């Protein structure tokens, strides 16, 4: 036996019946009642009574900032945060510096992820060179690289040119890729600072109309239908966007959609504080949008939760609202916020949670070894959660370099007790353990 083995005792699998789970050699070796005897010789026993066992979470939308903005985050710090948050895989967005628009850059990020060993790091490739929207990046080369890129996005910037979007959607069919669109019509949002509506009118901040998101989504689902391609819509934030996606799915269009934890919990009312920690792209919306997003996640119109984890150095937020950077951290709070908004509210079960945070994002990213069921023979990517725990969010105590958590000071439910990544405990007792060593065992 090369790998240490662990026996997880009496965990509630997906919040349903309790069972023991034996983890050995990177896989789930056995699942059953009262596993014992020779099978568990030498295994470290973890008492998981009262804990929920879930498949490791998969984030389709993470900004790790490296290369280029190591002052904001590195692959090492970002993936530590991911492991603590219950993740076993993250997709690193392409808006680094240099942009991840070549095989060289995506392989660099992938390699940094392997060296860190906290989670699988799957680089997202840029759709266009330099995110400039003018020329397709070498999508095929990124797909064929060791990073095996399948998700392509200019996230942060919308692929606003309809011809460029059409070509990208068509081209990635050659390697079963998907275009993840940041839906934001640029002309309608020039200088925009917050959701356009009741609050922006009073605050005198330039408005970010819902139609700027919805019009791009409407166009893109029609393009995806026309060319028979796969479209993923990043961070859906409005009730109108939900309606368009629901309509598209009803027509059989191959579209998936994502919502962030912060759009499930927070509203534009927070902008009245003028604290730029609440400044984010897309912006926090109104109460009715939040409710529509929750309902859409519960009924499957929205497929996944993506964190849009966007760490910034504190100087980027210690300023006037208009001068501040957009974005919020999210890796270490995602589980708790989704539990608060979707499970405590009775809208979803833990099995649904596993679908929207693990199985569905893994399927969109075409990851074969993530988001799998908790069954014998499957890769041992497992997170143990104490659903009864409550904790106060303290950004200073987080592993991410970013201190820009909009949940600071809130009390949230749910705590990640342990994370198993490829059978190795990266997190134990709620604290970082040791990273997984690729190829060393």
């Amino acid at each position, binding site marked *: 036996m090369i790998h240490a083995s662990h026996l997880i005792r009496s965990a509630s699998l997906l919040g349903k019946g309790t069972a023991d789970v034996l983890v050995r050699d990177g896989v789930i070796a056995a699942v059953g009642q009262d596993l014992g005897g020779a099978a568990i010789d030498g295994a470290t026993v973890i008492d998981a009574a009262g804990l929920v066992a879930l498949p490791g979470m998969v984030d389709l939308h993470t900004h790790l900032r490296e290369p280029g903005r190591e002052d904001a985050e590195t692959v090492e710090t970002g993936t530590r945060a991911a492991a603590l948050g219950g993740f076993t895989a993250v997709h690193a967005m392409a808006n680094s510096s240099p942009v991840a628009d070549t095989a060289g850059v995506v392989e660099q990020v992938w390699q940094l992820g392997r060296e860190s060993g906290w989670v699988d790091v799957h680089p997202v490739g840029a759709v266009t060179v330099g995110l400039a929207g003018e020329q397709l990046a070498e999508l095929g080369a990124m797909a064929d690289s060791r990073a095996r890129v399948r998700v392509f996005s200019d996230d942060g910037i919308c692929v606003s040119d309809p011809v460029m979007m059409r070509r990208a959607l068509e081209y990635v069919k050659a390697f079963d890729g998907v275009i993840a669109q940041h839906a934001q019509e640029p002309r309608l949002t020039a200088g925009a600072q917050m959701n356009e509506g009741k609050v922006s009118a009073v605050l*005198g901040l330039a408005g970010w109309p819902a139609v700027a998101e919805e019009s791009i989504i409407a166009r893109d689902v029609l393009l995806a239908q026309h060319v028979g391609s796969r479209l993923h819509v990043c961070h859906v934030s409005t009730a109108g966007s939900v309606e368009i996606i629901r309509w598209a799915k009803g027509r059989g269009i191959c579209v998936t959609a994502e919502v962030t934890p912060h759009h499930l919990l927070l509203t534009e009312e927070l902008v009245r504080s003028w604290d730029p920690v609440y400044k984010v792209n897309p912006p926090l919306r109104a109460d009715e949008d939040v*409710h529509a997003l929750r309902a859409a996640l519960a009924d499957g119109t929205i497929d996944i939760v993506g964190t849009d984890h966007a760490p910034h150095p504190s*100087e980027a937020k210690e300023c006037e609202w*208009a001068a501040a950077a957009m974005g919020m951290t999210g890796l270490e709070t995602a589980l708790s916020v989704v539990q608060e908004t979707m499970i405590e509210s009775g809208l979803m079960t833990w099995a649904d949670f596993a679908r929207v945070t693990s199985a569905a994002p893994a399927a969109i990213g075409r990851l074969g070894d993530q988001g799998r069921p908790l069954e014998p023979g499957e890769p041992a990517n497992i997170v143990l959660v104490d659903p009864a725990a409550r904790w106060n969010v303290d950004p200073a105590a987080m592993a991410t370099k970013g201190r820009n958590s909009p949940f600071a000071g809130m009390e949230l439910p749910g705590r990640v007790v342990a994370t198993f990544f490829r059978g190795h405990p990266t997190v134990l007792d709620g604290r970082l353990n040791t990273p997984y060593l690729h190829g060393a065992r």
Partner: protein
Amino acid sequence: MRHLLDTESLGRDNAIAILDTAQEMSAVGEREVKKLPALRGRTVVNLFFEDSTRTRISFEAAAKRLSADVINFSAKGSSVSKGESLKDTAQTLEAMSADAVVIRHWASGAPARLATSGWIDAAVINAGDGTHAHPTQALLDAFTMRTHWARLTGTPSVGGDLAGMRVLIVGDVLHSRVARSNVWLLRTLGARVTLVAPPTLLPVGVEHWPCEVSYDLDATLEAGVDAVMMLRVQAERMKASFFPSAREYARRWGFDDARLARLDALALKDTIVMHPGPMNRGLEISSGAADSPRSTVLDQVRNGVSVRMAALYLLLSGDMKAVPTPALPAFAQPAAKDHP
């Protein structure tokens, strides 16, 4: 109340206290020695991130008439990144023991950020921030209206409000901090406000404001009005298609000679015409209107000093009533309607 940041959170008592104090201060302006010792030894900093000579000299005159030491700090054109410069500047002023900071800023919310960030301990007075608020402008407008209204209704102005007064605010409401601050303050003082503007220059969400909205200036004049406040319109707005041309704007929404004459025809002999300045003569207001006996433009300038003296005096002497910090709804999260 430690700061004067906007009029939305300015209660009626404090608003009337400022107006009443301004009335006392205006008497100082009539004297030969235009000075009171009230703020001797206190330091007032005029911190301007955006040029406005008019507002700066008004605050400067106000502080000097109260015997305060005045420091003018122009932070415009700073090479430092915008954000760092607000924080660093604030800490510099803190080190200089400023008692009050009068801040003018291109960014909406910058004064509130300064007041609540913990970077500085001084009282903060918003002298205009982005397209958000300009509370002392609204107060001087209200002061001007209250003097007129008291004369018309034969009541003493001290302690009084604007109950029943009909006010039009006409022009580029979307980009106007003056309009925003007036809407909230005039509501608090009991006036009935109608905004008149092209639909492109009204913010989405204006339907939630405590006022009426019209696109038709002539119709609102016909309905009867006691004060018409014209807002400055930048001719460049036509380049962003807010309106087709300066001429068309002036014809439909400008207070021109024909509309001035119309007030007479409508027997609205006591209606005043206001403008916060600087005026674009020939665009939103004609020279005939600006220089007519109905115009209060110069009264407004004069009253500006009195109102700013009152604000400085009340904030620094601690005579403003405490107002509860407007609490954000708990985390501004939706109500528990999802909960079974």
